[in-house]
C-alpha cells in the first residue's frame, strides 16, 4: 500500500510538465480539493496554537507591556500581505507571458485575499499605535507603506472590475501588478527614509533578532500559519473562480449534479 502511494506521487511529479503545460481546469480543481482537505484543518490548528501561545504563555514586553501581543497578528499579516502582492504579480506575469488561464485564475483569486491581509495588518498596526504612541493613527514608515500597499491592491481590484472583457481585464491587471511589483521596493525604501521613527523591524530574518526566543517562537509559528492560511484562501477562491469560468463545460455539470444530488 505504502509503496503504491509513493509510486503515485512519482508519477504525479513526472506527469507534472504535461499537466502543467495544459494546466487543465478539472485537474487543478481535483488537486486543489485534495490539498485543501488536509491543509485547511492543519492551518486552523496552527493558528489557534500560535494565538494561544502568543496571547497567554509568552511573557510581557518590559517596555510595552502586553500591547506588544498585537505583534503576533500585525507582523505575520504584513509579511503575507507583501508576499501576496508578489504572488499576484507573478501569476499575472505567467498569464501574460505563457498565456496560461490558470495563472489568470490565480491572480484574480489572490487580489482580494491579499487586500484583506493588508487591511488586517493596517488595522492591527493602527490599534497597536494607540497604547504605544498615544494616537489612533501615526504616520510611521511601516504603517504608511502598508497603506500604500493597500492602495495598490485596491487599484488592481478596481481595474479588474472596470473591464467588460474579463480576459483583457486579466492581462491589464497583470501589467499593473507587475508595475506595482517593481515600485514596491522603491515605495518601501522612500517611505523608510522619509520617516524612520518606527522601531526597526524587530525580526531580522537575516541578522540575529532583537527579541528573545520566548517571544520569537510563537511569532514564527504565526507567520507560518498565516502563509498556510493565505495558500488555503487562495486555493478556495481559485476553485470558485474555476467553477464560474468553466460553468458551461461538461465536467462542471456532472460535478454539480453529483455534489447537489447527495445534498438534496
Amino acid at each position: 500500500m505504502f509503496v503504491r502511494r509513493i509510486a503515485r506521487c512519482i508519477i504525479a511529479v513526472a506527469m507534472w510538465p504535461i499537466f502543467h503545460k495544459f494546466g487543465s481546469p478539472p485537474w487543478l480543481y481535483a488537486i486543489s480539493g485534495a490539498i485543501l482537505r488536509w491543509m485547511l484543518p492543519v492551518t486552523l490548528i496552527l493558528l489557534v496554537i500560535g494565538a494561544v501561545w502568543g496571547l497567554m504563555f509568552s511573557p510581557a514586553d518590559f517596555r510595552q507591556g502586553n500591547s506588544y501581543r498585537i505583534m503576533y497578528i500585525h507582523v505575520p499579516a504584513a509579511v503575507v500581505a507583501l508576499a501576496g502582492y508578489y504572488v499576484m504579480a507573478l501569476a499575472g506575469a505567467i498569464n501574460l507571458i505563457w498565456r496560461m488561464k490558470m495563472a489568470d485564475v490565480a491572480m484574480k483569486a489572490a487580489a482580494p485575499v491579499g487586500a484583506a491581509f493588508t487591511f488586517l495588518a493596517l488595522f492591527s498596526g493602527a490599534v497597536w499605535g494607540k497604547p504605544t504612541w498615544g494616537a489612533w493613527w501615526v504616520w510611521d514608515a511601516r504603517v504608511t507603506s502598508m497603506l500604500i500597499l493597500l492602495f495598490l491592491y485596491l487599484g488592481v481590484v478596481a481595474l479588474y472590475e472596470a473591464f467588460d472583457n474579463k480576459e483583457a481585464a486579466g492581462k491589464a491587471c497583470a501589467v499593473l501588478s507587475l508595475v506595482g511589483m517593481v515600485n514596491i521596493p522603491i515605495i518601501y525604501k522612500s517611505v523608510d527614509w522619509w520617516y524612520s521613527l518606527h522601531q526597526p523591524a524587530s525580526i531580522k530574518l537575516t541578522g540575529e533578532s532583537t527579541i528573545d526566543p520566548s517571544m520569537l517562537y510563537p511569532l514564527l509559528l504565526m507567520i507560518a500559519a498565516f502563509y498556510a492560511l493565505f495558500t488555503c484562501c487562495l486555493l478556495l477562491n481559485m476553485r470558485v473562480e474555476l467553477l464560474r469560468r468553466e460553468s458551461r463545460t461538461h465536467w462542471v455539470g456532472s460535478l454539480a449534479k453529483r455534489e447537489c444530488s447527495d445534498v438534496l
Partner: protein
Amino acid sequence: MSGDPASSPLLASQSLCLIRGGRELFRELSFEVYAGQLWQIEGLNGAGKTSLIRILCGLSRFGFEGEVVCNSPLLYLGHQPAVKALLTPRENLSWHVSGDGLHSNTQIESALARVGLSGYEDVPCHTLSAGQHRRVNLARLFLSEAALWLLDEPFAAIDKEGVDELQTLLTAHVKAGGAVVMTSHQALQVNCDVRFLNLGAGVAA
C-alpha cells in the same frame, strides 16, 4: 485550398475559434491567403467579420483560440478613418504613410487627387464631411507598399464613382502580386478570382 503552393502564403490562419458573449461566431477556421488573391468575408451583422479582420491583422491577440501567421507587411483600414480633425488632409496622409518611409509632396498630392480631394489638401479636416474623412484614409492605398491589404467595409459612405475607382485599384493591386482580404456587403464587380468566406457557413469556395 488551391493556391500557387510555390510562394508561401502571405497570411495563414489555423483553427481560429472565437466565442463572443457565449455565442460561437466561428470555429476551426483555417485558410491561407496567397499573392494574387482577393478574399471577401461575408456574413450578417454581428457574424464576427470585423473581429476576424482584427484578429488577422494582429490588433486583437487575446480572446480567441487558434493562430495567425502573417509574413508580409500589411495595411489595415478599419471602420474609424484615423483622421485627426485638427490636421489637414495633407498632414494626416503624410503622417499615415510616414511609418514605412518618406513620400514626396507630389506623391501625397497625387494620392489625394486620386480620391477626389484635390483643392482640399490644406483645409482642416473638421470642416470636411465623414465621407471625405474616409477618402483621406483610402488615399493611403495609393501610396502603400504593403503587399497584404486588410480592409473593413472600404466602400462604406463612398459614392458610386469612388467605388468603381477603388475596385479598379484593388484588381490592379491583386494582379500586381498583392493580396486583399476585405469585408463588404456589396457584390464586387472585379475581374480577378474572388474567394468568399461566409462566416455563417464556415469556409466556402
